[in-house]
C-alpha cells in the first residue's frame, strides 16, 4: 500500500480551469438538441415505454403456450421441455383431461423465470409446438413469487397463438 500516494500527474492550467471543456461539451449537447429538434427521426433513443423496439422474430423472451385450433391448450404434458431444461425451471403436473377426446393435459404448468436462462431448449424439445419462446422481455415484478409464471399467465402471453401441429 505504500505506493499509493497522491497522483504525481498534474493537469495543465488550461484544463484545470475546465472552461474550454465545458464549452465543448455544451456545444455537442446543443448540436444534438437542435438536430433532434429539427429532425426527430434520426434520434437513436426511443420513447420507451410509449414506443418499443422491434426485436427479431427469433428473440427469446418469456415463453408462451399455444392452443389447438379448438381453443384447448396444446400441451400434452409430455414433460420433454422439463427434461430438456438445463435450468430445471419448468414444473408440470400432468392429469387426466376432462375432455374425453384428450387423454392427458397439464393441470399445472409453472415456469420459474428467475431460473430460466432463455436458452430455448424447451421450444426445441416440444414435439407439438406447444411452447415457444415469446417476444416479451418485460419481466419485472415486486415479489419473487410473481416470477413463477403459471399456465394461465403463459397462455395469456401466447395471445391465442395456435400450434402448427394439428394432429394427435
Amino acid at each position, binding site marked *: 500500500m505504500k505506493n499509493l500516494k497522491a497522483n504525481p500527474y498534474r493537469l495543465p492550467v488550461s484544463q484545470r480551469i475546465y472552461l474550454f471543456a465545458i464549452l465543448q461539451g455544451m456545444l455537442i449537447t446543443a448540436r444534438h438538441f437542435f438536430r433532434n429538434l429539427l429532425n426527430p427521426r434520426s434520434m437513436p433513443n426511443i420513447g420507451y415505454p410509449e414506443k418499443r423496439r422491434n426485436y427479431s422474430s427469433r428473440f427469446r423472451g418469456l415463453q408462451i403456450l399455444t392452443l389447438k385450433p379448438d381453443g384447448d391448450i396444446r400441451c*400434452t*404434458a*409430455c*414433460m*420433454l421441455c422439463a*427434461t430438456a431444461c438445463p435450468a*430445471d425451471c419448468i414444473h408440470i403436473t*400432468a*392429469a*387426466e383431461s376432462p375432455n*374425453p377426446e384428450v*387423454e*392427458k393435459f397439464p393441470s399445472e404448468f409453472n415456469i420459474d423465470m428467475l431460473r430460466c436462462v432463455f436458452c430455448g431448449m424447451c421450444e426445441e424439445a416440444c*414435439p*407439438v409446438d406447444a411452447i415457444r419462446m415469446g417476444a416479451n422481455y418485460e419481466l419485472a415484478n415486486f415479489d419473487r413469487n410473481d416470477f413463477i409464471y403459471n399456465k394461465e399467465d403463459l397462455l395469456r402471453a401466447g395471445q391465442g397463438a395456435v400450434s402448427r401441429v394439428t394432429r*394427435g
Partner: protein
Amino acid sequence: MEKKRVKLTIDGKEIEVDDGISVFQAAVVAGIYVPHYCYHPDLSVAGVCRMCLVEIDKVPRLQISCNTPVKEGMVVATASQKARDAQKGSLELHLINHPLDCPICDKAGECKLQDIYRDFGLYKSRMEYENKVHKPKVQDIGTIMLDAERCILCARCTRFTDEVTKTNELVFVNRGDRTTLKTFDDGPLQNEYTGNLADICPVGALTAKDFRFQQRVWFLDKTDSVCTQCARGCNTQVSYNPKTKKLYRVEPRRNVEVNKSWICDKGRWDYHYVYAENRIKFPLEGATKSESTWHHVFGELNARSMENPKSILVLLSTQLTNEELADAKETLPFMGITQMGWLVDESKVGDVEPYDGILKHRDPTANAAGFQKIFEGAKNPVLDLEATSNLLAGNEVTEVWLLGLEGNEFEWVTEKLPGLLKKRLVVHATNQAPWMESATLLLPNVSSFEKSGTVVNALGRLQKVQQAIPTAYLGRDLHRFLTGLREGGDRAKIDASRFADIFAKKVAPVFLKEAQTWRSLSVMGVSR
C-alpha cells in the same frame, strides 16, 4: 439327478447349458440380448411376436429362439444380417398400426418398441397411409387403464390372467389386424395381481392408474428392496424421484425363489400410507397431542423406566427389522425393562404357503419368522399374545410401550388385548389410528421405505430392505430411537450408530453360517 448338459455356440460364444432349455434362455445365460416382446421368463411360450428370430446353422428357415430347444453342437447367430433383417421387419410390422402418442404414453422411456427401434430399427417409415387400424383407447378396466390401440398383441397379459391368476379376464376378440384386447364381458379386472399387467406389458397398452401421469419414468431412480406388506417378502424395486425425494412406484423384482416376477396389488399400491394424512410427523404428547421434541421424549422415557421398570411392558411389532429387534433385545433389559411381548396377530403367523396359492400370506407383517429367531433362547422370553393379555388384565403393569408399528393394520390390537387401553400408552407408529387417542406419547416411526435392515420371510429367507427415500418428518426407526434413549439424546452418537454394524455383529451370526457384512449380503436374499 444330474441334468444333461449340452454345448452350443451363440454369436461365436461357446457355452454349456442344461438340456431342454430354449435357445433364447441359452442366450440369456450367455449374456446375449435377443429382442423380444412376447417371451416372458415366468409365462408359457407364445411365440407370436416373431422378434426373437435367429439363424441356426443347417436350418434353412429362421427360427424363433424362444421355442427352439437347444441341441448339442448347435451354432446360432442372433444378430447376423439375415436375422437382423427379419427382426427389423417384425419391428416395422409391429409399428405400422401403433399410434404415435409417445408424448402422452406413460410407457415412454421404458417402452420396448422405443428401445428396440433405437437399438437397430432406425428405418424411415414406409407407412404413408392414413388409414391405420383404430381401436378403443382410454378404457377403464379397474386398477388399470387399457389402450387397445397401443397393444401389440404379445399375449403376455392374457397368459398372465390365464396361467398365474387363473382368472381369465383378458381376451383377444376378432382376428387379423382387427384383433383387440378386451376384458371378458367388458367387466373390470378381478384379481389381486392386476398391477403386474402394467409391468409385463411391453408397450403402453396397460398402464397402472396409480402411476398414470405421475412421473415420466426417466426422472426416477430405483432402489432394490423387499416388500414388507406380508410375510412373503416379495422382492421389489422402489422408484423415487431424487429431486422431489418422493416415492412413486413399487415394482416387483424377479426372484424365482420368492415371487418370480410378480407382486400383489396390496404390496404394490399400499405405499400410500407413507404420504397419508394420518402420518405421525412429530413426537406428540399428552391428551391434546401437542408437538414435542425427541429430546424431551428421551428424558421422559428414561425417567419413567428408571422410576419403575417393572411396571413397563414393551410390545415389539413383527414389522421391525432384525437389526432393530436385536438392538431392542439388548437395550431394553439394560434399561431394566424385562417384560417384552410381540405384537402380531398370532392366528395368522406360521403359514409357509400363501393362502391364495400365488403370493399372499395372511400375516400382514414382514418379520415374524425373524422375530422368533432373534429372541430364541433370550434370557427373558418374549410373551405371546395370551401371556400379554393376562399380564394386561393384572395391575402390575401400568404402562405399555408399543414399538415399531407401521401402516394402518393394527386395529386388531384393541380387540385381542382388551386391557391395553386402560394402561398408560406410549405408541411408536407411522400412522395414527383412533385407538391411539389415549396414548400419552405418540412417536413418529419410519416406514420400510425410509429405513434399511433385514427381514426373514415365511419361507425362512433372509432378505434386505433398503432405504429408498429420506426419512420424512421427524420419524425415527427403533434403532435410532433406542440409541437416543441409551445416549440420552446425544445427537452425534445417534447419527454415528449404524444398523450395518448391528447386522454384521448380531444378526448375521444368528441367521447365516458364514460371516457377512451388510454390503456383501446379496439383494436376492439368502435361504437358510
